[in-house]
């Protein structure tokens, strides 16, 4: 479904990605792990067209999307929950959800405001508040809801559980599991390795801008010293 081949990305003169390659299959949940500053977010931003890779190729469902404008990439069916929430501060919660909502591929059971609110009941009481007045966790929920409202084929979550209370975090993992059952493809970046192992099919470990290990949850389990070395757990 999504295929990244040896991309190299720079910020100005400093190179961050050195031949990053990975793949996400249909209906697959894949994680990207690694320490701070290794290039996970940069990979996501390269996929979404927010930064331009200088070399390499990115395809989505066999369409080349390398260097396409961000909005066209999103229209291919990629939905992003960005690092650091980035909700629209000057829009109300409801407006945040509906402003960019779309059902481009005619999903039978599309996401609606009501469905998002069932998933995150905390948002219900704040539905008319401006998003910048929400607490950190509430904003995080809103960011997830907003991405879901675009009914993406591939959902990308970059540290989507940062700052969430344990209960909510669990709720989100449940939700991802449900989505997975429904066949949603997901690329997720998170530090809760135990949860990830449960949910995800495959994992990539990123170091200094490229993939240094990849494998299934079982393989990851079997490789305790690798995890210790690369991720410090």
């Amino acid at each position, binding site marked *: 479904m999504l295929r990244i081949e040896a991309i190299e990305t720079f910020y100005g003169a400093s190179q961050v990605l050195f031949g990053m390659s990975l793949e996400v299959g249909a209906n697959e949940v894949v994680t990207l792990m690694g320490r701070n500053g290794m290039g996970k977010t940069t990979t996501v931003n390269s996929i979404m067209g927010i930064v331009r890779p200088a070399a390499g190729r990115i395809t989505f469902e066999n369409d080349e999307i390398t260097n396409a404008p961000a909005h066209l990439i999103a229209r291919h069916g990629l939905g992003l929950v960005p690092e650091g929430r980035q909700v629209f501060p000057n829009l109300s919660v409801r407006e945040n959800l509906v402003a960019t909502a779309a059902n481009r591929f005619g999903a039978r059971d599309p996401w609606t405001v009501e469905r998002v609110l069932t998933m995150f009941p*905390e948002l219900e009481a704040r539905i008319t508040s401006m998003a910048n007045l929400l*607490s950190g966790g509430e904003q995080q929920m809103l960011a997830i809801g907003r991405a879901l409202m675009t009914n993406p084929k591939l959902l990308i979550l970059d540290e989507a559980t940062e700052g969430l209370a*344990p209960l*909510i975090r669990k709720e989100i993992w449940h939700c991802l599991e449900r989505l997975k059952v429904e066949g949603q493809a997901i690329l997720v970046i998170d530090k809760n390795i135990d949860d990830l192992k449960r949910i995800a099919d495959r994992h990539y470990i990123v170091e200094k801008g490229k993939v240094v290990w990849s494998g299934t949850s079982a393989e990851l389990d079997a490789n305790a010293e690798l995890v210790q070395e690369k991720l410090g757990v």
Partner: protein
Amino acid sequence: MSGAFLEVRDLYKNYGGIAATDHVDLDVRESELHAIIGPNGAGKTTLISQLSGEVPPDGGRVRFGGRDITTTPAYKRSLLGLARSFQITSLMLDMTVLENVALAVQAHAGHSFRFWRPARSETGLTGPAMEALAAVDLADRAHDVARAMSHGEHRQLEIAMALATRPKLLLLDEPMAGMGVEESQRMVEILRGLKGEKTMLLIEHDMDAVFTLADRISVLVYGRVIATGTPEEIRNDEAVRQAYLGDEVA
């Protein structure tokens, strides 16, 4: 329980009909690490902001080191020894990492109405700044512009700045958020090292960290403190489990 290091009495803050802080009483004892946990939107950040002086409370009192600081402006509280880190990073992005921290040192090194001597070569400022950076493992990035660092690194810098002001009381708003597993562990180590030396008020959703570090924990739900106690007491509190923990730490 009067005579506590930080004493909050009947603190109240209302945001458009929602009581973000609902008659909160809280005592933080000298040298303890006091954690505050609670669901998202419970009012933890709002509470910290009132303690640090950024948000004026609608009612109630705050005493710090025996002195009423309810209406003291933020910068004065900082000079009194109250430092905070921000949940959502707040840095001088266009300055270097070192300059960010050096400014924090400078703030507490007498007034800054000094117009003539170059500040960047004052070792009295850069020395302690480098120490703080070393403490969070950022020393080798000292001369990079803050903007060019990753999210996790920003979080580390955030803590370094709070440390550099040599506070008596550290208000930490989710210091682990956005950090990798290893960095989180490092942070736990850093905080553990500071324990006993500094008084700390810690907000965190990382329960492992909270339960290993905290001397006492208060649980905030809908702006109200529903329980305060030792980690053990809190872990076993049914109301807290229901409202916040779930079976996470059963």
